[in-house]
């Protein structure tokens, strides 16, 4: 069995039962950061060093989306040859009041998406070799999740 590792250390929980993005939260002012901020709270009126790990909401609404129709340049690594176009989503999290980018699961194309729809975080393979499977987060329409 291959070793599963996150695409970026500390950015996500790769437990299939609980896929979550992991950010940090300022213990002083409550500001939330993703990607994780660990040195100093970036609220200029705060600046606290007390930043604690926090899981982000796994659901949000689609703020906007686009598609990668051509293979992106390195360091992107395509998993298929020929390259398969994919969609990229910007999803707004209500509680965190922030927008987070992610690829959209492979079966969902640009034409299947509409702004405002509910999206859910899921896990997928970014890269793979003989020993290691690198896991990333992707966004998936909630309707597709339910019918899957």
């Amino acid at each position, binding site marked *: 069995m291959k070793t599963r590792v996150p*695409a*970026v*250390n500390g950015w996500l929980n790769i437990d299939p039962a609980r896929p979550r993005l992991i950010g940090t939260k*300022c213990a002083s*002012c*409550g*500001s*939330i*950061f*993703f*990607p994780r901020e660990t040195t100093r709270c*970036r*609220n*200029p*009126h705060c600046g606290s060093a007390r930043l604690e790990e926090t899981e982000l909401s796994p659901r949000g609404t689609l*703020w*906007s*989306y*686009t*598609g*990668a*129709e*051509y293979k*992106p*340049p*390195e*360091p*992107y*690594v395509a998993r298929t040859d020929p390259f398969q176009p*994919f*969609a*990229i989503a*910007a999803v707004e999290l209500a*509680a*965190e*009041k*922030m*927008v*987070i*980018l*992610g*690829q959209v699961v492979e079966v969902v194309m*640009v034409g299947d998406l509409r*702004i*405002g729809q509910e999206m859910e975080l899921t896990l997928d393979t*970014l890269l793979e070799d003989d020993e290691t499977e690198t896991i*990333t987060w992707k966004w998936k329409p909630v309707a597709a999740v339910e019918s899957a």
Partner: protein
Amino acid sequence: MVQEVAILGVGMHPWGKWGRNFVEYGVKAAEDALKDAGIAWTDIQYVAGGDTVRNGYPGYVAGATFAQALGWTGARVSSSYGACASGSQAIEAARTRILAGLCDVALVVGSDTTPKGFLAPNKGARGDDPDWLRFRVLGATNTTYFGLYARRRMALYGATSEDFAQVKVKNARHGLTNPNARYRKEVTAEEVLSSAMVANPLRLLDICATSDGGAALVLCSMEFARKHTANPVRIAAISTVTPVYPSNVIEMPNFSTDSAAAVAAPAIPFRDSIAHAAYEEAGIGPEEVDIAEVYDLSTALELDWYENIGLCPAGGAEKLLRDGDTTIGGRVPVNPSGGLACFGEAVPAQAIAQVCELTWHLRGQAGARQVEGAKVGISANQGLFGHGSSVLVKR
């Protein structure tokens, strides 16, 4: 209001895919600007270079590279990098040195030689560099961000692919006779709409290319200018603002926006704040603007800029375009040069080139594309990692 500096000379090397060393383009642009100013290179007391990060060490120290190529004179030097905003960083360095009384006359130069295809990060794995990571983890190119903005614009304001195509049609027409433009050919809406899809909803002809090119300015104190010319074009303001936390619109190359959970988002979003700061500094309002050069990295982004620089309220850009207001001959022509649509982007030269174009119009020297009676012009641009860039000029 702040004190003004004069634009004594402007010069450019034509944009293209020439494949030569970037220094050549910068030197040619500088020679033209000096000639236009009517002064010698040896008169320059300060050289401000806009850096290129794709041409090795000489590009990181562009100010010194240009000074050496023109012949060392002992002039003071600086080199600035602010991504697409590098040019205005260099202009600001020269302006502040003049206004501080530390020099009378300065040369600003930026030039670039670009690779083919998508702009990509420099080589080498860097797991803590968001610009590297966004390619690695998301496969997000620059066009990804342009596509997100364009789709959002369609959903919010009812913009259509036809509107986006009409921006390209307008700019292609504007640039037809511009000797410095790389693409000088009419483009039809059908050609845009049938070009290859790149970053849905944006197609190949909606997105600007990358180019080689160079631009230069000679800036001086008003006192120095009076010895050379009666009525120079003046810089009334330069905005190099950064965002205010929490910046809540997704910006290249980020994975996310700031969170507005603990602190409310600022009243003026970042891209609106860029020109706003220039207007405040100059004591001039957007209703006084006669001409604008904005950063049309994509056709859709040009429409965003109309609103960001205050030419119309949010959601009003499509009407402005459809009514012909932003076409030469209209109320406030935008990108009379042809914009990035006709130039392609030469990163450190572009913000300087915008000011060259505005200067020619304010002097009445823009030839067939002249915007008649232009007295006030504004440029707007933005460099990734939070670099605002706007220059307000008047005559």
